[in-house]
């Protein structure tokens, strides 16, 4: 495989940004239902 055909590897910075986006999006979606339900027990 020549240099042009090989898929470009992501930089560490790009990988970090993708990881961060996934963690924030999934984290928000997971925490949301628990938060909306559980706060009733603390008020």
């Amino acid at each position, binding site marked *: 495989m020549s240099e042009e055909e090989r*898929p470009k590897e992501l930089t560490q910075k790009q990988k970090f940004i993708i990881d961060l986006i996934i963690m924030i999006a*999934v984290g928000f979606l997971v925490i949301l239902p628990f938060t*909306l339900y559980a706060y009733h027990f603390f008020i």
Partner: protein
Amino acid sequence: MRTFVEKIKKPLILILISIILMILTGIANTLNIANSGPFNLVFFGAIAFALLMFLGLLGLIFVFLHDRVFTIKPMSTRIGKIKKLLTNTGIFLMALFISLTALLGVMLSYYYIRLPPSYSVDPMLQLETWTAIPPGGQIEKHHKSNTDLYYWNNSFYCIYQNSKWHLQDLDGELVIERSPDASAGSWERIASIKGPGHNDVRDPLLTEINGTLFVYFLPNFLFDPEPNTTYYTTSNDMENWTEPTEVKVNVSYDENWEMEVGWIFGRTEPITNDNNTWYVTAFGEKNGTWVTLLLETRNGIDWKEISVVYDTYPSGEPCIEFLPNGEIISTLRVGAMSSWTGYEFGTPHAGTIIATSYDNRTKWSHHADFQTRMDGARLFKLVDAENITRIFAAGRNHLGPGLVGNHLGRKRTTIYEVKEDRLIHVFDLPSNGDTAYTGVAIVGDEVYVSYYTNPIRRDLPWIVGLAFFSKSEIRMAKFSATGLINYANTIIGG
């Protein structure tokens, strides 16, 4: 070996398709396109986008955990392969749990954003609706519910449950507010009623018997509310109330009469047509069977059984109204007229029993109607131009999707005409999520209906409005009595 970005392409495409379906389904719901009935476009759209979203999230989270968090390396030995298999299984289960929870988060976000349909009605009804009592800024008291409306001494009185949410709230209360004209911003809080050492109190009924004001209400002792008795308190001025006392009922058995507690009053306050005897319906257990009884009193305190209204299947929240001949018509909420109770997902056998008394209210005939289960209702009567009495109900319409009672279904507060053998849908009031539990006051030619609902800028499913976005307000609807009769006359089958 494929890169991480290549691996998450397919899950991301599934998520993208799901989001497009969500938008289309939301628009169809808002435009009232194929969005009601047990099985419809919005229902199947929701199933399809939820499934695609789940698969997309599962794929994305599995790849993320596998490649970026636990970074599993290929292993060539047998023990290494077994280790890899076990690790992958663990990661899959973790991804499954996270994706299911995230799916719930997606659905809540979708319902929060989804716009409601328009609530247009025929102009002849002269319908006006407004927020009478807003949720308020106090988060521990932002759920206003279970209304009753009473017109007394030229003022409107609204009594309602004030709590943090629909489920058990040990710091709840019943509140009475007064208004000269029921308009927005005119309501003034004048009294608070709490239970005897227990403040989860709900389903108030406000009336006057022999010059004394009575509030009957139900204390609840369970997380998922299921009241099992009735209390009452009295007043002479609507502001100062006596210590609550448990209602006792004299119940007839084959050999004797027994004074019992544990009878749960229905949705209609005691009614009279001679100012001598007042009637109410109550449900409870008699001889091991769940029955609804008609009771009578002369003073609001001593109650006595007159007849069994209905005992075939467990029922609740009965409503009553007098017919012109002195007999009584009643609607009863029935969870299932079979052994298929289908609690969370509903059942095709849920419905409303319409019972009509005869032989001086001692016997009852019955008809079943399956278009809705009449939750949280109130009956009221009007007399038309031909001097014919017409019975109407303000109660809950189970719009679906899914079967009646489905927790994910949408519900509305709705006006029905009640015939002795069927219900006729007349029109929906602006409402969504957790709604209904109405009060009715008729002043001149105007019908006032109080009800509670999640704020109407959204269209929440019932369970979402109940357990997650629990803020609710008390709305007032005002419409012409003549207009209602004229409009009901135009409905085919009416």
